């Protein structure tokens, strides 16, 4: 379809386009683009600028420090440990959530009775916030005292109460953090897998049945390969979400304004660096830029390895 305006005519006619199309495009898309420009693009550019300046307690750049903030961040042991925390967290959360949500999807998909009920039950935690989940996990299930649910259960087996969130050796807090997020997220990814399972042609399973293949073989040679695109998307989403972990770390581990030195994922680190007592926006911005670049690198790398978006049929 030809989009260009007629060659002749006044500038206003040309700006408006044929049938005023340009004008209507501006009316429909304009507000959104303008908002994006002001509330996403300008802050990001501003942040990149600030990252080269010394900006304590002020959002206007004062003293140019070049790459100083970046060097400080990379030299900062606690910033590096925040990245390590993310890697550890991702190593726990990505595979477990993947397996649990895939498992639930396979089970729910084959259930002929009460299928909607089970789907709803597993999906329901999606409506819950990290704050509420943290509250139940920290004060009820994994509270480090004898009356906590988990310690009560352990007590039945004669095991002494465990201080789940306040000991670093052994680091039980990982179990608390990972299970909370898994409970919140597994149902959402289960829905994605269910959608993927619906799209697998029944004729593939019929062919497998004729060949006498069943159980694991069907899963291994039909279901999993057919779910490849979904799996890639789920992995990528899990990883991106893990990188942005903040809510449950903050709510599970901090107490009355204090945060323990261990288990600070990058966003918690940035929160305290930029908005803590120093209001150090220069370093905070440099950290945000480093993080963004890292996430982009990981996403690209994963894309290379797994081939997201590659057409498969």
């Amino acid at each position, binding site marked *: 379809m030809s989009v260009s305006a007629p060659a002749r005519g006044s500038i206003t006619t040309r700006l408006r386009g044929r049938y005023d199309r340009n004008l209507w495009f501006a009316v429909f898309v304009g507000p959104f683009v303008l908002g994006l420009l002001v*509330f996403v693009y300008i802050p990001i550019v501003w942040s990149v600028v600030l990252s080269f300046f010394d900006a304590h307690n002020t959002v206007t750049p004062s003293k140019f420090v070049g790459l100083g903030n970046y060097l400080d961040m990379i030299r900062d042991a606690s910033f590096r440990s925040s990245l390590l925390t993310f890697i550890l967290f991702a190593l726990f959360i990505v595979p477990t959530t993947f397996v649990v949500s895939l498992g639930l999807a396979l*089970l729910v998909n084959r*259930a002929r009775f009460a299928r909607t009920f089970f789907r709803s039950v*597993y999906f329901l935690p999606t*409506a*819950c916030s990290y704050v509420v989940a943290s509250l139940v996990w920290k004060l009820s299930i994994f509270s480090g005292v004898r*009356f906590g649910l988990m310690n009560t259960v352990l007590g039945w087996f004669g095991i002494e109460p465990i201080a789940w969130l306040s000991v670093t050796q052994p680091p039980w807090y990982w179990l608390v953090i990972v299970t909370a997020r898994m409970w919140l997220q597994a149902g959402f990814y289960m829905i994605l897998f269910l959608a993927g399972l619906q799209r697998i042609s029944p004729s593939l399973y019929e062919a497998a049945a004729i060949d006498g293949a069943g159980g694991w073989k069907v899963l291994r040679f039909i279901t999993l390969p057919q779910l490849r695109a979904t799996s890639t998307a789920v992995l990528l989403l899990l990883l991106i979400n893990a990188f942005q972990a903040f809510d449950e770390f903050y709510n599970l581990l901090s107490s009355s304004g204090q945060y323990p030195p261990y288990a600070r994922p990058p966003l918690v680190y940035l*929160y305290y660096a930029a908005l803590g007592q120093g209001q150090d926006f220069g370093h905070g911005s440099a950290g945000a830029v480093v993080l963004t670049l890292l996430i982009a690198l990981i996403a690209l790398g994963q894309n290379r390895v797994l081939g997201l978006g590659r057409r498969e049929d």
Partner: protein
Amino acid sequence: MANIQRSGSDKAGSVIRYVVLGVGAVFFLLPFYLLLRNGLSTEADITSPTWKLFPSTLHWSNISDLFSDPAVPMARSLVNSLVIAVVQTVGVLVISGLAGYGLARIPFRYANAVFYFIVATLLIPAAVTFVPSFVLVSSLGWVSTLRGLIVPGLFQAFATFLFRQYFLNFPRELEEAAQLDGTAYWGTFWRIVVPNSAGFIAAIGTITFIGSWNAFLWPLVIAPDQNSWTVQIALSTFLTAQTINLPQLFIAASIAILPLVVMFVFLQRWIVEGVERSGISE
């Protein structure tokens, strides 16, 4: 679906499946039960050395105590959360719906460039931008205001992207019939497209509402003042406080999830459909 082979051993397999599903369901529902149980208990019940499945008596008065406690701005926080979530949901539906339709249907020479401009922001992890966004919003003087909490969340690139994909697949015949009448884009959109897209709009609306109601990092950063707390911030503050009134905290959390659970039960079908149609897993 996957139940072609039906043999004797499959019956046993089916029983095992239901046992696993059932046990899993209990574990997934347990946290909801604990919220209610603790919320309707006394402090002594919760901290009793022998764990109780049911509270000895149901303390419904915990609810009125919560709302009459002057130290806990619960009512205010709930109202703030409701206003923010409703305005953001309506705003996102209008702004992203219009943009998605424009991108999908109105021929414009630079439409592709505009589309890339939008999609590029999806690659930037939203939470990482909290530092620059704080810098901008605070320099506008919007700290601890509803504006500061609401406005930056109105421009959701992902919602626009989903609307565009959806409108690309919207049957053109319906719109063409209207356009023969001489109805322009504006009229076609509101009179033909919107009424015929109720399901998808409900899906995006529900997802936006949940995200807005449950948002934590942005309200934490931008609303330090008690009057502008959202319900999540209020809960978090009591959760990390030095002295905690356990039943009060749990009943507050139960009240905080109530609107979403109700919404979820009624709109789940559309959320699932919306997620499935989002094309994430294609």
